């Protein structure tokens, strides 16, 4: 079975569908129209660009280009995670970039070599696409872990100083905040994992089945992806937090974010 193409008429009909939310917006005076149009426009442009890039990446399939693309994506994700938390890019980019490169590379290569057993580990179709999927989730985890950690420790400075004064080493003193922030960053994915398949059909599976795969095969891929995403997320959260602590907390416990 081949996936039916979406032709120009189809694309126009797709845009026409937006008339429904716009009409609702007008009727209820929600004043959301501008935001809605801007975000849809951004989505269209970004995906179109990504489509063009991916076409070429898959066509050329050069290992160095795939790696370069990967590093650029990680850098963009690091930038976005740091800006979201209003932290200093200069101090935080290395720890976060490093954490994501290590965690995501490990997860993708594991997936490619031990789960789906492909020979060309860095082929665009798998390396670029799977790492993109993993990266988004790792970034979400890192945003939460850094936010919780640095916001709370500054708010609860008295308690932190007290622990240091008792003779705690830097990591001993930071333990409660390390625990809290890592837990907070992983709870959402643990919760969604538990309900997967109950209420919705996950995006990747939908894509694969529309593309003609059998449901069973699509489900096996989905299971593997969920686990790989989770592992990469946990590893990148832990590494990003520890690397960032090394970068901004002095041996004496002074925090300079």
């Amino acid at each position, binding site marked *: 079975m081949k996936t039916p193409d979406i032709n120009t008429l189809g694309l126009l009909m797709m845009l026409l569908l937006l008339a429904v939310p716009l009409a609702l917006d007008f009727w209820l005076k929600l004043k959301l129209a501008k935001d809605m149009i801007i975000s849809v426009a951004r989505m269209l442009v970004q995906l179109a660009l990504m489509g063009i890039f991916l076409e070429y990446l898959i066509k050329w399939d050069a290992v160095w280009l795939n790696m370069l693309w990967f590093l650029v994506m990680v850098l963009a994700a690091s930038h976005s995670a740091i800006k979201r938390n209003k932290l200093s890019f200069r101090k935080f980019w290395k720890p976060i970039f490093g954490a994501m490169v290590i965690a995501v590379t490990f997860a993708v290569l594991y997936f490619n070599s031990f789960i789906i057993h492909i020979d060309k580990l860095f082929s665009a179709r798998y390396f670029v696409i799977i790492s993109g999927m993993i990266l988004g989730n790792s970034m979400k985890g890192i945003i939460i872990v850094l936010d919780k950690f640095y916001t709370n420790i500054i708010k*609860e400075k*008295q*308690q932190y*100083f*007290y*622990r*240091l*004064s*008792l*003779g*705690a*080493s830097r990591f*001993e003193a930071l*333990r*409660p905040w390390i625990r809290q922030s890592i837990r907070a960053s992983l709870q959402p994915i643990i919760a969604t994992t538990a309900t997967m398949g109950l209420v919705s059909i996950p995006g990747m599976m939908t894509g694969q089945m529309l593309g003609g795969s059998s449901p069973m095969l699509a489900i096996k891929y989905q299971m593997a992806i969920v686990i790989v995403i989770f592992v990469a997320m946990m590893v990148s959260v832990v590494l990003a937090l520890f690397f960032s602590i090394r970068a901004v907390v*002095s*041996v*004496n*416990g*002074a925090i300079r974010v």
Partner: protein
Amino acid sequence: MAFIQFKNVHKQFDRKVIFEDLSFEIQTGERVLFQGPSGMGKTTLFQLILGFEKVDSGTILIDNQPLSPAIIKGLRQKIAYVPQIIDWGQGVVKETLEEFMSFQSNVRLTHWREKMPELLVYFDVESSLLDKKFPMLSGGERQRMAIILAILLDRNFFLLDEPTAALDSPMKQKVIHYFSERKDATLLVISHDNEWHRLPAIKLIPLAP
């Protein structure tokens, strides 16, 4: 021997000058009471000693050596500090104590469990309090637990920031009595309570505008 020396210390927060040119010296074994109006920088003084704040200029010497990461580390293992704001976190009191005592630099304290009951009795703390979550404790209970912890650490240098502010008068007396019996200890006390003047051989360092 001089335990702590401040030499021409200058400290300010933003544009507010806290210490302009502060110099003093405390010998090992001395008992010192810092007094001064609220907002004069008494708590800040302790934070400077413990390395939580940095001087803008001037020097702080501990045992004749300038504060450095290594000296600060050593000092935090040698001083028992009771902060003005006491926060042990969200956990159960007993478990939090266990955790504090499990820090690498405290694991040598093997007898603290045996010493505790006597201190709880002396400072009039019910032992059921150990099973409560710390945020449930009253101000005075927190203060007494912090004093008990400071004593259990088995250290000879005490930095006490308003240790009796939330206590009733008989309990203030008991705390002061306890420290007057600790002839081995070097004491640095910040307090608005005049009862501390009665501590034998106490030396006053006023912090005035």
